[in-house]
């Protein structure tokens, strides 16, 4: 039966209603004070559970510093007894490993603040601290730049930077607008300035919040982090061009900056995991950083350490392999002969397949010790990855390109760099509370759970 009706009672029409104006809701200060007071009374947030004594681990710290300085001295010795190019390459591996850790930490600090992340609040302080140590690898980079500068002044060519030469060919002449020492110094100053400013100012604002409880600092950091990520992306990409990609000035890859970033993100997560595992295993942060937080940190480690790196590395390799254009392919050819092919295979298996298979397990991610072991494992692979990038360049152009050669120099350089960094990180660890004590989101973080 079909009929036509008027005013059938099925439809809904929304009624207009008065509009509301305003800036958005704000919590009153006295209410917020009460919330802070409740947080301050939380039994988990007391004493040594969240704050190390100034003297904590002073012996280890000193020992690490001695080891670090000693190993770097051995690297310098390697320059004398073996080859300055090799030693400088090993030193640059160490510097860039530490730089990757600091830059990755800076990235995650900014990211977590920019997106108002809740669960990682408890991890953020150590990311801020690691980012704040960026002056350490920057000093190393200054050393690299100075060595190249003096080398080119006195001998006419660079040590590791092959584009520093008195006899530029066609390619270098075309690229000289970018690859010249003066511009490099300017760029380096810009990178260093931006990184130092972002890392130190965010750290100091976060520490100030610990003291004053001013929640609007969170908003200030968020604003800084928003443009900071943009500045970060550009500086990291160009810094990786300047110090890594241009080691072989013939080679170019638009993916390069992303590739270095992938390693940096992973190293930062690895160091964070190790730091917190040490703290938790020594009885700190009970009830604050739980297995639930570790589960999520492990997911990030899995995503960046195994998957994202593999994605970027594979995409770069695959496109070059498939297209087979000589100026690009040479980069991979260097690394498939003279002994480097072994390292290439180790990277494929050890940097992707093994961590993928292990970190996919929920049990590993939630286990304090296993997570730390995997993090240390991945950190070693960051060193190997950078070795694979930098070290073959030490011999390009030499008549019979040599393989890894005297690898003890690589070992001492990387151990030295990491030991020195660890020593300073331990000092930073003891200098402030282990977590952002008055972060407005801390209360929610403490209750974080993975329900599936």
């Amino acid at each position, binding site marked *: 039966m079909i009929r036509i009706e008027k005013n059938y009672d099925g439809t809904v029409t929304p009624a207009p209603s008065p509009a509301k104006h305003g800036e958005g809701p704000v919590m009153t200060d006295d209410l917020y004070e009460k919330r802070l007071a409740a947080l301050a009374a939380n039994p988990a947030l007391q004493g040594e559970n969240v704050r190390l004594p100034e003297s904590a681990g002073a012996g280890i710290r000193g020992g690490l510093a001695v080891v670090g300085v000693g190993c770097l001295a051995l690297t310098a010795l390697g320059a004398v007894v073996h080859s300055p190019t090799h030693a400088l390459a090993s030193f640059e591996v160490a510097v860039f490993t530490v730089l990757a850790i600091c830059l990755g930490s800076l990235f995650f600090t900014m990211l977590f603040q920019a997106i108002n992340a809740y669960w990682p609040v408890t991890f953020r302080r150590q990311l801020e601290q690691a980012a704040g140590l960026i002056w350490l690898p920057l000093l190393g980079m200054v050393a690299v730049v100075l060595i190249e500068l003096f080398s080119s002044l006195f001998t006419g060519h660079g040590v590791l930077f092959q584009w520093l030469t008195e006899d530029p060919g066609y390619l270098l002449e075309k690229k000289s607008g970018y690859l010249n020492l003066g511009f490099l110094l300017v760029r380096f100053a810009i990178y260093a300035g931006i990184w130092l400013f972002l890392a130190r100012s965010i750290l100091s604002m976060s520490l100030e919040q610990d003291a004053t409880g001013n929640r609007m600092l969170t908003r200030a950091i968020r604003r800084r982090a928003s443009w900071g990520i943009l500045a970060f992306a550009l500086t990291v990409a160009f810094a990786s061009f300047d110090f890594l990609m241009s080691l072989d000035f013939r080679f170019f890859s638009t993916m390069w900056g992303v590739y270095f970033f992938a390693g940096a993100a992973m190293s930062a997560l690895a160091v964070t995991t190790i730091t917190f595992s040490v703290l938790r295993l020594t009885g700190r942060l009970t009830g604050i950083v739980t297995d639930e937080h570790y589960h999520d940190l492990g997911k990030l480690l899995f995503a960046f350490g195994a998957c994202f790196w593999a994605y970027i590395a594979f995409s770069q390799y*695959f496109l070059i*392999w498939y297209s*087979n254009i000589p100026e690009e392919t040479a980069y991979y050819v260097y690394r498939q002969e003279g002994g480097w092919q072994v390292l290439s295979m180790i990277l494929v298996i050890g940097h992707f397949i093994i961590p993928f298979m292990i970190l996919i397990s*929920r049990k590993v991610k939630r286990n304090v010790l296993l997570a730390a072991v995997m993090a240390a494992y991945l950190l070693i692979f960051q060193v190997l990855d950078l070795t694979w990038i930098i070290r073959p360049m030490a011999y390009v152009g030499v008549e019979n390109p040599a393989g890894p050669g005297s690898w003890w120099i690589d070992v001492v350089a990387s151990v030295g760099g990491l030991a020195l960094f660890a020593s300073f990180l331990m000092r930073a660890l003891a200098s402030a509370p282990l977590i952002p004590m008055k972060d407005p989101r801390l209360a929610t973080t403490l209750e974080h*759970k993975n*329900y599936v």
Partner: protein
Amino acid sequence: MSIVQTVADYLPIVPKPRPKYVTENGKRVHGLIAEYDTPADVYHAAEKIRDAGYKKWDVHSPFPIHGIEEAMGVKRTILPYIVFKVGLGGAFGGWLLQYWITAVDYTGFTVQGKPYGAWEPFTMIIFELGVLHAAFAALIGMLMLNGLPRWNHPLFSSDRFLGTSQGKFMIGIEATDKSFDPEASRALLESTGGNDIEIIEDDD
């Protein structure tokens, strides 16, 4: 739910086990349901029923209540392991398919001078097939572990039960549970704050 029962649900020729309790209409008793007002109520009730030793019972809610597995004493599902294995199998199958076709069955077709069995061009399809199989394993595995799909369920005979997919919270205890007793179970549900306790008949 026992296997016999599940099979009997799907194949009507398989006789169902003899009912322990029968209503006055002569129909088998499926179980009892009780309604709760809030997620918190049903959560705390679930803890009590778990502690009373029941095994065949369930909480029905319009959305997954966070942490209810713990309150019910449900073990973690084995689904992730199934999915992982099926996914790996799919990925391996993807490699085998491509390798066999390209490097074994159909050689002599050179593309860009690349080796026949080179792994690089196979990566994409290996990955895609792995994901495809894992996705099917996740959906089908979830349904099979849940005993779904099914045409009907005795619980749907209750008018009020239909509200559990909208905004109501209910606990249902099945009559096949060893600890089930019409009076004692009803008393337990009442003591946990359950309202409108109702006997569900199984229409067979």
